[in-house]
């Protein structure tokens, strides 16, 4: 039975719809998770314990670049959905591939930034401010890394199975996740970086 979800006229609910709904609820829990982290960040914003603060070390050019890259990747993940809805499997895989590439570039820039900060003497144990900074930004980065691995697995599944109700739902969900990370990043960008240097 290739696809158990199609056709059969029993009364049980559509599994793909259920999963999408559950994913929205999961996203809500993630919203709370990030909200809590933002709250701790804001509380500890001034607690640099005499050490370096955001104004001393943030390099905004790199941040603009990675913001631009992440926003673009959100756009390409949208193009992937369009291709999927048109039934164009190859374009779908390609756009997902581009999204993975952009996401990986974002991560690369973030790791670079962290290494730079560490070399300037701002580690996670320098002060409460830096602990909160690395935790908040790092948690977003971890989410991005997770999304990348997930997207790669999905590309493999699409290669194997094509566009089915199941893979379709999975792609829809990952793109939802990806947009969500974008929104979180906009908050990180504004609250941590823009407000940090001003």
């Amino acid at each position, binding site marked *: 039975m290739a696809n*158990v979800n199609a056709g*059969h006229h*029993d*009364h*049980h*609910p559509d599994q793909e*719809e*259920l*999963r999408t*709904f*559950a994913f929205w*609820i*999961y996203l*809500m*829990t*993630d919203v*709370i*998770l990030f909200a*809590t*982290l933002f709250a*701790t960040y804001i*509380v*500890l914003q001034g*607690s*640099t*314990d005499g050490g370096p603060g955001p104004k001393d070390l943030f390099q905004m050019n790199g941040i603009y670049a990675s913001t631009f890259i992440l926003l673009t990747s959100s756009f390409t993940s949208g193009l992937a959905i369009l291709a999927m809805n048109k039934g164009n499997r190859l374009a779908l895989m390609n756009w997902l591939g581009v999204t993975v590439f952009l996401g990986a570039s974002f991560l690369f820039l973030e790791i670079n930034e962290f290494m730079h900060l560490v070399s300037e003497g701002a580690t*996670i*144990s*320098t*002060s*409460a*401010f830096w*602990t*909160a900074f690395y*935790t908040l930004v790092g948690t977003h980065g971890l989410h991005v890394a997770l999304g990348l*691995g997930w997207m790669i*697995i999905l590309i*493999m*599944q699409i290669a194997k*199975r094509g566009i089915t109700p*199941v893979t379709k739902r999975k792609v829809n969900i990952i793109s939802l996740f990806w947009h969500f990370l974008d929104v979180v990043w906009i908050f990180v960008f504004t609250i941590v970086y823009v407000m940090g240097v001003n």
Partner: protein
Amino acid sequence: MWESVKEFASEFFVTGDPLIYGADVSIVLSMIAIVSVLTYFKKWGWLWREWLTTVDHKKIGIMYILASVLMLFRGGVDALLMRAQLAMPEMQFLSGDHYNQIFTTHGVIMILFMAMPLMFGLFNVIVPLQLGARDVAFPFLNALSFWLFFSGAMLFNLSFVIGGSPDAGWLAYPPYSELAFNPGPGQDFYIWGIQISGIGSLMTGINFIVTILKVRAPGMTLMKMPMFSWSVLSSCIAIVFAFPILTVTLALLFIDRYLGGHFFTLDGGGNPMMYINLIWMWGHPEVYIIVLPAFGIFSEIVATFSRKKLFGYKSMVFAMIIISVLSFLVWAHHFFTMGSGADVNAFFAVTTMLIAIPTGVKVFNWLFTMFRGKITFETPMLWTVGIIPNFVIGGMTGVLLSVAPADFQYHNSYFLVAHFHQVIIAGVVFGFFAGLYYWWPKIFGFKLNERIGRWAFWLWNIGFYLCFMPQYALGLMGMTRRLYTYGWDKGWFEMNLVSTIGAVIMGAAFLVQIWDIAHSIKHMKRDTTGDPWNARTLEWSIPSPAPFYNFAVMPQVTSQDDWHERKLRIEQGLEKPAKVELEPIHMPKNSGIPIVMSMFWFFVGFGLIFDWLWMAVPGFIGVIGCMVVHSFNYDTDYYVTVEEIKRTEAEAGRVIT
């Protein structure tokens, strides 16, 4: 070589305490016993196929309940040890350090590893049946939640014999829980045990919200849904909002301890008060998360045993929703004395008092349901009626505590200990007991013995009042919480002795309950009706125990208390038992991934606790591997044939032609 092994062992295992050597021996002996029995009777394959890999919500529920009863035993032994130490002034039974460990593990185990799984057990066995569903929305996720809870609980319990128990209280306030003051592995056991099982709880929350909102029988609108399911829904919504905060809080504490962070430290700009705010933003809703389902249980039982429709259905639903919202707005009442200022305290005092209103509404609704009902007092009803005075006292002392200025007197005194045990034991735990007695025949197919059940009820209640009423007075006399010894000059001796006697009686009551179960199994009278209490909701319309697919034919719901209404119509000859058309049933396949993945989580936790990356890293890779394998698996379900349905129903005593 030998020397270094010995040195490692003496640090790794907890040594030097006869109690713990006793525990070591009994753990090893029971392991050997279990392994040999399973091997002798060749039951390994059966255990794996029928239980460890099951995705059947009813079996998962039973495993939750079993684990929870074991944890009640462990937490209860802790409680008895503490009460033994406090029975007389100047006791030398436990040292101060040991006492700290015991009240910490007692609190954590009772709330997170006893009350939560008992509640999840009841969710699992009952909610899909009440909704007329074949399973929860995500059976695989459900199994994963259970095994995560189980690994977290095992990890936490290990701290007793390996490495040492946590001792910073059940909420682990910093700075005492920070590395500087608490270097041992105990605090890390706390973090990882709770973290792993907490992720499971969060997933259960999501699973049941989706189940209740999306997988109901045709015709069951939200306003026709049984009250227990409503209570589960409101509790799960609170879980979804509260548990991410716990996840973050524990992660931050871990970052402080493991990576040298400064969230809550005294140096480096950290802010310990932030932890206290965060943990209570989870901790207070947590109390309502466990009490709301108990409210649901009382509502079902009161209606069934009064032979009446529940009074004020809509106001009940409304009250539950209000409670779950308000529970997020009161957290600061836990630290009125810690300098928030008058305005803040006033706000939190008022919100706290507000919760008494919807709770009062519920109590009145139960009373009005009983009013002029044909009440019978079988054990479930006995518990329910017994709980009402408890709730009234517990609620009133709660309002007393919420008066911010007065709290400067009660704060961290035995008055508080008495209050929260009154709501948690006499509200939540007794409520879950009522539910267990009520649904036992549905779960296992036979009733528990009524006479022994009554004994247990009276012993629990007498023990409870003896144990906790004196504590209110002790609190007012100045005895503080977490105190491990006191002098003769205080005048606290008599009441502490009474309190300890009460605790011993509750211990006896637990044993009577175990005896009740053993006795009822031995003299089992199978329930052939499927509806032994003449109840009202859908779960009673199918055979007991429910077949693995629950409903041979999907019920069509037309009214509230649908099963009751249908029985009436059939009795009056208005409706004939429907003729049924069987169709193949779509079912999920068992999976070994949940248990394997949770084992990997266990290794992650254990490795991080002891700073053994050689264990944590492969564990983590294993977790990821399990997710990938699951993602690639498209072969997750099958169909039950019509012949098999007929055969199963016939074995349960129902002939379908």
